[in-house]
């Protein structure tokens, strides 16, 4: 084994990276945002652990949260040697990043009894950090600010009445200048989704942007009758921010009800924008929350193909000109590379291997050959409501220029069934049953995609669906985990598997990298999620038990810290 010194962190100069001009979305000693940086690269510039020595990676410490309610889905944050992690039931821990020693623990008061919608999604996925405070959206639908030093609550502010709206927050908030911005759940409920910005210092409301325009607003005409009032679209994951352009980027959820459009679609031409601004990616003014541009990715969604996933911001040369770009992969696996100044489509492509909801997509993003659900009759649709990709994030490397995505191949038979909406109640307008696509033996893969050509550079198949986020590093490594409990490293350049470690429980969270006193650590949450997509995936493999748990497992090269 090629033993390197672990006393120092030997950064490669950023300028030597192939695609490192312009926006720098990488992290170093700290991991301050859900997506690493506000550009959501999930790329660490640390390269102490690299392709040459990754086989020497061993556990440095682990931490059991004790909250085994539904896995550990969050992305830890790291600042100045302290790690912060939140559990599904909103317990927050501050840990010594080098040893795992507990510094403080925040245990929230019991949730007020609420409606099923708010209570069903007790799945906190992360924190935000700014101005000496940690922020999270709670299961009972408050934005809570904790003192970063003590874990004590500083303030909390109600986002909505979970009992009424059937909504809450599972995603990590995003820091946008002096504000905390967060979306919420409720895209599958009779609920009108929104993003809300609060002042990070005072907790006071800064702005709220409704996904669905109200009467008199542009886009309102894309809704039939009163369907806009409870039309879903909730942006339930975390967006990105470009401080130079002062634009906030966010993906929005599906229209509600999910599988039937008869009561919400006023159009006959399904190639047009329908039910704005659901299933879209939007750019909002950071100061005011006003819409600057949008791109609806799935017109008249009837498959539950949210576009609420992460938005990766990067700068690249396109036909001789440097462009400010963003990449956005939605639940269907449809991927848009857009100019993030104007929203213009630079490239569109689609990533699933099993796909029949459309026959394809044009380079400028128009869907070809739709296969829509029908009332009262099951229609086989691939991918499933679990997605070609779940909410777990892809990563970007400025060294290779690739996007790395965890993907799955599951199909479902959807039966549309019109229902009257009832505020805050589940409103799917139908049902589905999942099945594995025939004639294949692998149902997950890690892919590397070139965002500018839309070509897959490499793909590594796995038997089971992959539902953990990707971490990429300047050591040319790509880390993620599988449902069986293996946490592994691939060569970012070619996908070769270089290292693997059995952590003991399934992976449904998001790994990070950070450093303390010159030693690089790789931290991964472990513990399978039994509800929602984790539960769907597990139900496809009744002979397997994807193990639950809630443990942070942290790796490093031996001897580095001493």
């Amino acid at each position, binding site marked *: 084994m090629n033993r390197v010194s672990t006393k120092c962190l030997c950064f490669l100069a950023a300028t030597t990276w192939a695609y490192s001009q312009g926006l720098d979305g990488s992290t170093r000693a700290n991991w301050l945002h859900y997506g690493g940086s506000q550009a959501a690269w999930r790329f660490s510039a640390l390269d102490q652990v690299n392709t040459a020595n990754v086989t020497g990676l061993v556990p440095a410490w682990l931490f059991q949260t004790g909250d085994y*309610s539904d896995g550990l889905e969050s992305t830890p944050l790291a600042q100045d040697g302290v790690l912060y992690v939140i559990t599904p039931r909103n317990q927050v821990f501050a840990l010594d990043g080098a040893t795992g020693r507990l510094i403080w623990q925040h245990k929230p008061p019991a949730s007020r*009894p*609420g*409606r*099923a*919608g708010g*209570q*069903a999604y007790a799945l906190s996925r992360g924190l935000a950090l700014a101005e000496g405070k940690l922020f999270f959206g709670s299961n009972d639908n408050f934005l809570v600010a904790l003192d970063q030093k003590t874990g*004590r*609550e*500083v*303030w*909390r*502010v*109600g*986002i909505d*009445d979970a*009992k*009424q*709206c*059937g909504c809450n927050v599972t995603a990590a908030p995003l820091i946008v200048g002096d504000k905390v911005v967060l979306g919420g759940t409720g895209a*599958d409920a009779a*609920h*009108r989704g929104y993003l809300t910005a609060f002042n990070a*210092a*005072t*907790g*006071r*409301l800064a702005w*709220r942007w409704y996904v669905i325009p*109200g009467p008199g607003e542009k886009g309102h005409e894309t809704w039939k009758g009163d369907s806009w*009032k409870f039309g879903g679209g909730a942006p339930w994951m975390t967006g990105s921010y470009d401080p130079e352009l002062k634009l906030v980027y966010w993906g929005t959820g599906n229209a509600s009800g*999910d*599988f039937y459009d008869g009561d919400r679609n006023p159009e006959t031409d399904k190639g047009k924008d329908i039910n704005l601004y659901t299933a879209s990616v939007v750019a909002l003014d950071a100061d005011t929350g006003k819409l600057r541009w949008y791109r609806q990715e799935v017109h008249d969604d009837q498959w*539950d193909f949210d576009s609420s996933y992460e938005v990766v911001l990067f700068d690249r040369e396109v036909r001789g000109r440097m462009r400010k770009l963003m990449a956005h992969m939605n639940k269907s696996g449809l991927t848009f590379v857009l100019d993030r100044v104007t929203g213009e489509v630079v490239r569109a492509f689609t990533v699933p291997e099993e796909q029949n909801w459309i026959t394809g997509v044009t380079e400028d993003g128009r869907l070809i050959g739709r296969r829509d659900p029908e009332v009262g009759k099951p229609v086989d649709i691939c991918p499933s*409501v679990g997605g070609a990709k779940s909410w777990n994030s892809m990563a970007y490397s400025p060294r290779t220029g690739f996007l790395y995505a965890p993907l799955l191949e599951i199909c479902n038979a959807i*039966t549309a*069934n019109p*229902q*009257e909406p*009832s*505020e*805050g*109640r*589940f*409103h*799917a307008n*139908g*049902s*589905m*049953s*999942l099945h594995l696509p025939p004639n294949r033996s692998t149902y997950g893969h890690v892919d590397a995609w070139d965002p500018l050509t839309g070509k897959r550079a490499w793909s590594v198949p796995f038997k089971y669906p992959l539902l953990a986020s990707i971490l990429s590093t300047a050591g040319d490594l790509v880390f993620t985990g599988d449902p069986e409990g293996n946490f592994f490293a691939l060569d970012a350049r070619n996908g070769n598997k270089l290292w693997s470690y059995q952590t003991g429980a399934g992976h449904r969270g998001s790994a990070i990298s950070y450093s303390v006193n010159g030693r690089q650590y790789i931290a991964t949450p472990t513990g399978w999620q*039994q*509800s*929602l997509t984790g*539960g*769907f995936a597990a*139900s496809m493999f009744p002979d397997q038990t994807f193990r639950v748990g809630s443990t942070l497992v942290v790796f490093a090269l031996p001897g580095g810290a001493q």
Partner: protein
Amino acid sequence: MRLAWFAFASVALASGSLTSAQNLQDVVKQGEQVFNRSCATGYCHGLKGVAAAAPRLAARGFDEAYIENAVSRGLPGTSMAAFSGSLSRSDLRAVITYVANLNGIVYSPAVPSENSNGAGVVLSAEASRGRVLFSDPLRSFGRCSTCHEVNGIGTPVATPIATVPADVQALRGLATPSVRTAILNHEAMPALVLSNGSREIVFYDLTTPPPVRHTAQPDTVMWRDGSNWKHSSVAGSYNDAELNLILAYLRSVVQP
């Protein structure tokens, strides 16, 4: 579970409310509608409980006690949520009956019958409209339920409404002597104290809706009596006619 079943059966017998066949049919039908809306949907049990992403419920040999417990309280460690706080009692009773029916059980559990607001009062048309306005989601933070909880809906920032204002003018001009002025981080703000202990003080900053609940060390906050905050400043999303409807609702449900 057996114990719960016995307890439940005792209540049913004591109340002497075995459901008639005709009524039962209606209840099952209502239950099916509730089930289709709440339980059969995409992520859950499928139409007629034949299984979708969540397990099959039909013909599982469940007894009523189990069904009642699972529907009302949820199943910890699974996605099965508690519906007792979200379904009306009538819908709860109906859906339990329906799932029982799917499992070959013909008698339904007797849950006390429901009225339109859950507090023993049938609302007038005016009051019903007032109830909707009270927590109207289209008004975002400009609705009453941002600060008042009535019949389980809303956030209880203010203490429970004990006296209903006589008219719209009185509602807008409501005296709020408990709102004081807090000075925190060199900024004065209208504040409502929730608790005042020797180690921490908890209060709401009312500067702009929604109120922000602060938890601070007592020596970090200075206080002045009185404030320039006015109830009318947060009732601005409603016109007089709408406030009259809300008052009609409050008169129906607020117990003096």
